[in-house]
C-alpha cells in the first residue's frame, strides 16, 4: 500500500512536465529546421519555377513574382514559418521541387528500402552483440573477452563507409560473389546490412558487456551462487533478464546513430532510401523534401526517446534515475 500510493500522482505530474517539454522541443525543432532552409542562399522562386517548367531556361520577372505571391515568399519570416507549420501539422507536406510529386508519396516509396536495410542490420547486429558479450563475460579477462573488447574498440573507430568500401573491394570487385551497388534482389542487401550490423554490434557489445559484468557482481547473484545454482542457469535465468531492460533502453537511445549510419551506408552502396533521398534533395535544393526529411528524422528521435523515458517511469521510478543518468552518458558518447 505505502509503496503504491505515492507513485501515481508522481508519474502523472512527471508525465505532464514531459509533455510540456516535449511540446517545447517539437516547436524548437520545427523552428530550427525552417530557419535552416529560410536563410539558405539562392532564389527559391526560380527553384520552384525550374521544377514546374523544366524545359524553360530563363523566366520573365512576372512569373517569378507570381510564384513569390503564391508561396508567400514576400511575407516576413514568422508569417511564412507559421503558414508552413500549420500545413505541416495538418499533414500537407507540399510537392517536391524536383519532380513535382507529393513529398509524402516520394517518402513512402523510399522508406521501404531504408526499413528493410535497418531492420535486417538491427536484428543481425543485436543478436551478434548479445552472443559476443555473453561469451565475453563468461570468463572476464580471457582471450575471448579481450577479443570482444578489441572488436568493440575497433568498431567504434572504424568509419562505416570505409568498411563498406572494403567489403565491396573484397566480395564484389575481387571475388565477384555479391553485387556492389544498387537495390533489387536480396543479394543487394547483404553487404550494406553487414556494414551497418558491424557498427551496431561494436557499439552494443561494449555496453552489454558492461551491463552483464555489473549484473554478474550483484549481491543477488552471489547469493544464488552460494545456494549452488549453476553458472549457466544464473546467466540465462537471472543475469540476462536483469541486464536486458537497461540494455534495450540503451539500444533505443542509439536510434540517432542508427539513422546516421543508414544515410552513410545507403550513399556508400548507392542504394535507394531515405538517406540518398536526403542527399539528393540537399544537392538539388528541393526545400519541401529537405524540410520533411529533416523534420522526420528529428521527430523519430524525439518520439522514441520520450517513449523510452515514459516506459522507464512506469516500469520502475527508482531505476529510471539510474538509467537516465547512464543514458545521458550514452548520448554524450554517441558515435
Amino acid at each position, binding site marked *: 500500500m505505502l509503496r503504491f500510493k505515492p507513485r501515481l500522482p508522481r508519474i502523472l505530474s512527471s508525465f505532464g512536465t514531459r509533455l510540456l*517539454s516535449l511540446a*517545447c*522541443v517539437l*516547436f*524548437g*525543432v520545427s*523552428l*530550427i*529546421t525552417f530557419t*535552416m*532552409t529560410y536563410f*539558405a*542562399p539562392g532564389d527559391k522562386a526560380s527553384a520552384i519555377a525550374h521544377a514546374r517548367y523544366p524545359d524553360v531556361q530563363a523566366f520573365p520577372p512576372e512569373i517569378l513574382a507570381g510564384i513569390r505571391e503564391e508561396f508567400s515568399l514576400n511575407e516576413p519570416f514568422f508569417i511564412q514559418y507559421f503558414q508552413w507549420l500549420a500545413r505541416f501539422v495538418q499533414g500537407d507536406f507540399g510537392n517536391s521541387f524536383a519532380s513535382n510529386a507529393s513529398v509524402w508519396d516520394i517518402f513512402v516509396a523510399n522508406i521501404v528500402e531504408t526499413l528493410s536495410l535497418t531492420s535486417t542490420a538491427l536484428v543481425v547486429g543485436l543478436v551478434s552483440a548479445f552472443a559476443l558479450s555473453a561469451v565475453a563475460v563468461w570468463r572476464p579477462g580471457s582471450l575471448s573477452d579481450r577479443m570482444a573488447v578489441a572488436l568493440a*574498440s*575497433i568498431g*567504434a*573507430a*572504424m*568509419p562505416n*563507409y*570505409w568498411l563498406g*568500401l*572494403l567489403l565491396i*573491394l573484397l566480395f564484389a*570487385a575481387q571475388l565477384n560473389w555479391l553485387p556492389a551497388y544498387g537495390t533489387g534482389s536480396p543479394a543487394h542487401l547483404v553487404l550494406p546490412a553487414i556494414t551497418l550490423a558491424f557498427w551496431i554490434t561494436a*557499439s552494443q557489445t*561494449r*555496453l552489454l558487456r*558492461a*551491463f552483464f559484468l*555489473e549484473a554478474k557482481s550483484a549481491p543477488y547473484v552471489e547469493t544464488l551462487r552460494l545456494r549452488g545454482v549453476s553458472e549457466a542457469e544464473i546467466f540465462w535465468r537471472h543475469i540476462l533478464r536483469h541486464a536486458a531492460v537497461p540494455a534495450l533502453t540503451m539500444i533505443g537511445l542509439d536510434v*540517432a*546513430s542508427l*539513422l*546516421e549510419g543508414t*544515410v*552513410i551506408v545507403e*550513399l*556508400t552502396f548507392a542504394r535507394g532510401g531515405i538517406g540518398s533521398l*536526403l*542527399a539528393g534533395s*540537399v*544537392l538539388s*535544393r528541393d526545400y519541401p523534401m*529537405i524540410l520533411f526529411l*529533416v523534420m522526420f*528524422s*528529428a*521527430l523519430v*528521435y*524525439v518520439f522514441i526517446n520520450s517513449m523510452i523515458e515514459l516506459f522507464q517511469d512506469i516500469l520502475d521510478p527508482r531505476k529510471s534515475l539510474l538509467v537516465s*543518468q547512464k543514458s*545521458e*552518458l*550514452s*548520448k*554524450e*558518447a*554517441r*558515435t
Partner: protein
Amino acid sequence: MTLLSEAGSLEETDIQKTEHAKDLSRFLARIGAAILIILIAAAAGFLLSPYAPNEPDFLARLSPPSKTHWFGTDQLGRDVATRLLYGGVWSIGLALLITLVGAIAGTAIGLAAGHFGRATDVTLMRVTDSFFAFPELIAAVTIAGVLGPNTVNMVLALILVGWMKFARLVRSLSVDLAHRDFVIQARLNGLPSGRILWRHILPNIGPNLLVLWTNAWSRTILSISGLSFLGFGVQPPNAEWGAMLLDGKAYMQTAPHLMIFPGLAILAAVLSINFVGDRLRDLIGGNGVTAN
C-alpha cells in the same frame, strides 16, 4: 560517470587526492606532448617529403606501393604518403578547432543554464534539447549541402551540431556542484558569482569536460572524413582522408591501395584518441558504462 565520480572522490583521503591529481596532471602533460608531436610530425613529414601533396606525375599514375612511393600514387600520380600526412593536418586539426569552439560555446551555455535561475535554465535546456533532436550527420549534411559543400561550411555545420553535449554535461555537473559545501561556503563568504564559477565550479568540471572533449574530437574526425567522402566536406583535390577515399573509389579495381591507406589512417587516428580518452576516464574514475 558524473555523479558516481563525485561520490568516489568524496571518499578519498587528501593524500590519495594529491596523488590522483599528480597522476592526472602527469598524464595530461603526456597527452599534450603526444598530440603536439603527432601534429608536428605530420606537418614536418609532408614538408620533408620529396613530393608536394597536389603535385601530379603523369608518368607514375596509380603505381602500387614501392620504394620511391611508399604508399603508391593516385590517378594523377600524386604521392599517397605525402597526401596522407598533409590530409592528417587537415582532419585532425580541423576536428580540434571544431571541438574547441563547440566545447567553449557549450560550456558557456551550460554554466549560464546552471547559474542564472530557473527561467534561463529551462529556456536554454529546451533549446539544447531541440538541437539535440537532429541526428548529427543528417543535420550536418543538410546545413553543409544547403549552404554549398565546401570546407568552411562543413566546419560551420559541425560546430552547430556539436556543442550540445558540452552544454548538457556542464549544466548537470554545475547544478550538482552548486549544492556542495565548498561552493555554499564561498557564496556565504560573499564571493561574486563570476568568481565562484571561475575558481570553484569550472576547475571541478574540467576533468569530465576533458574526457567528453577527447570523445568529441575523435568522433569529429570521423564526421569530417565521412562528410568529405559523401561530397559535403573538404572537396578534392584537397587531400583530406575522406576526400581521398572518394577520389580513389573509382580506381578500386586497379589500385586498391588508394582504398586501404586513407581508411587505415582514419582508424589509427580515431583509435589512438579513443585510447587516450579511455585512459583519462579511468584516471578520473568513471563507471565504465560509456560507449565510445
